[in-house]
């Protein structure tokens, strides 16, 4: 990161707020087993659907489990799903984008038409089609959401590679006898990291939303896993008597994604102001 970029990031109150929220989210995910007051999956039949109290700040669910503890463990699952899906999309998309942008010609045309096909699936339908192929499970949701995001990375990396490829220092390195691998690794990749980091930060939030949605309709995490989307799905039928089972997991998703979005926007402004909409 360049110094002016870091300064811009540190001067933006919204980016700092985003970093703070993301920090709380990360800390909760990492420390869940130490800070959660109760076991997130063990049922407690005598504590079923209890309203929020000092003993159970977020109340209890239909099996008597502490909602706060489940929300805390849920942050671990959401972070895992969001990060792994981003890693899949980022790796596949970056490799494809580099090949397309650096080689051009047939490879470029093939890869770009491939992304056109993936982008032809509306909304979360591609993820649904992948889950349909692999079967409903949390691991398959990560793969599905990751594949769905590949075209965005591939296109962004291709665009950045095309512009970097023309630069004089790349020409100079090529003239000096640098191999293609060295050109890509040392000169091209290093200069297109900004847009990749921005996409990844914004992508974690989006992936958390999609994965929670798939779990909500029963295609992702299966009970008793304390996943936020699956928790909301279970809460739907107790809405009349136990609002807290629906309110807190949803609030957790929203706060986590707001944090990632604010941080992502701040990083974009700091690293690559041209991407700003």
């Amino acid at each position: 990161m360049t110094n002016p970029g870091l300064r811009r990031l540190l001067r933006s109150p919204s980016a700092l707020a985003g970093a703070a929220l993301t920090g709380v989210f990360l800390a909760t995910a990492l420390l869940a087993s130490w800070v959660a007051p109760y076991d997130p999956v063990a049922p407690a039949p005598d504590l079923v659907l209890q309203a929020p109290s000092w003993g159970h700040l977020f109340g209890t669910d239909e099996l008597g489990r502490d909602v706060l503890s489940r929300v805390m463990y849920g942050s671990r699952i959401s972070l895992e799903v969001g990060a792994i899906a981003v890693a899949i999309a980022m790796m596949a998309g970056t490799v494809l984008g580099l090949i397309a942008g650096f080689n051009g010609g047939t490879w470029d045309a093939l890869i770009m038409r491939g992304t056109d096909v993936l982008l032809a699936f509306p909304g979360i339908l591609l993820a649904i089609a992948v889950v349909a192929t692999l079967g409903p499970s949390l691991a398959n949701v990560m793969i599905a959401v990751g594949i769905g995001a590949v075209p965005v990375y591939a296109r962004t990396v291709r665009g950045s590679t095309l512009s970097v490829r023309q630069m004089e220092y790349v020409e100079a390195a090529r003239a000096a006898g640098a191999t293609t691998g060295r050109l890509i690794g040392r000169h091209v990749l290093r200069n297109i990291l900004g847009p990749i980091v921005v996409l990844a930060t914004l992508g974690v939030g989006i992936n958390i939303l999609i994965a929670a949605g798939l779990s909500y309709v029963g295609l992702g995490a299966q009970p008793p896993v304390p996943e936020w989307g699956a928790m909301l799905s279970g809460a739907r039928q107790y809405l009349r008597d136990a609002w807290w089972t629906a309110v807190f997991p949803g609030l957790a998703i929203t706060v986590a994604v707001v944090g990632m979005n604010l941080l992502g926007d701040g990083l974009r402004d700091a690293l690559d102001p041209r991407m700003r909409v």
Partner: protein
Amino acid sequence: MVGYTLRRAGMTLLVLLAVSVLVFLMSHLTPGDPATIMLGENASTADVLRLRHELGLDRPLPAQYGRYLINALRGDLGRSIRSGRPVAGEIWERFPPTLQLTLAATALAIAAGVLLGALAATSRNRMVEALLMSASLVGISMPSFWLGLLLILLFGLALRWLPIAGGSGWQALVLPALTLAAQAAAVLARLTRASLLEVLPSDYVRTARAKGVGSRRVLFHHALRNALIPVVTVIGLQFGGLLGGAVIVESVFARSGLGRLAVGAIQARDFPLIQGIVVFAAAVYALVNLSVDVLYLALDPRISYD
């Protein structure tokens, strides 16, 4: 313009053809044999082999795809494993409620997004602008199914103004449409604001003001007209998001529709039905985007693709 439209339509057809290959291959990558799934685990080997022959599953993959494509072009998408009914019939039956929900949400998202975006761009009160932009950030970050549950809690259970599940008539459409529209409205509000902020300092806007045109007329007649051009493209893309989002919103409100059909089909591993729904939704989305691109040309005569 005719040349561009034809070229664009040709590209759309090619992409849809590729989508059909991909979806066809997906069903062949799934674990388990469709004939065994259809007949159940206890079926005899002879029965499974006979059904495999009837379905054409014993033929080479390219031949199977050829047959699938020819049948699909005739409107025959195969039979549902679960119900035994034609897939095309099931989709056609469940599409109207989903289309109704998606169109209602699109209309709501455009109206709210453009109005709020214009308000944020023109408001002299920094608080109003900050409030609107924060609301749009929350709108983008909030899962639709949670918003749906909150609306059910407030308008269905606490105030008892609107039905909370199923039903017909406009009352049953209000909460699902609001739920589905929120995220798209937030995106459109941000885009309208950004686009208007670029257009407002233009010479023609200044000229209109200098001629004494009222501020409302300058905004709606001069500035917004040009600011909305990029917004139109995004509306096409948002329609796809809304069509996909309907899958989840239909589950929240227990509404009959394509989304719930898809979720049921995945849980029952009903591949012909899943294939049919995915290809159908991609075709609808492709047609909407094609129309938006052509409309874009008509809206902005400065753009020429020829």
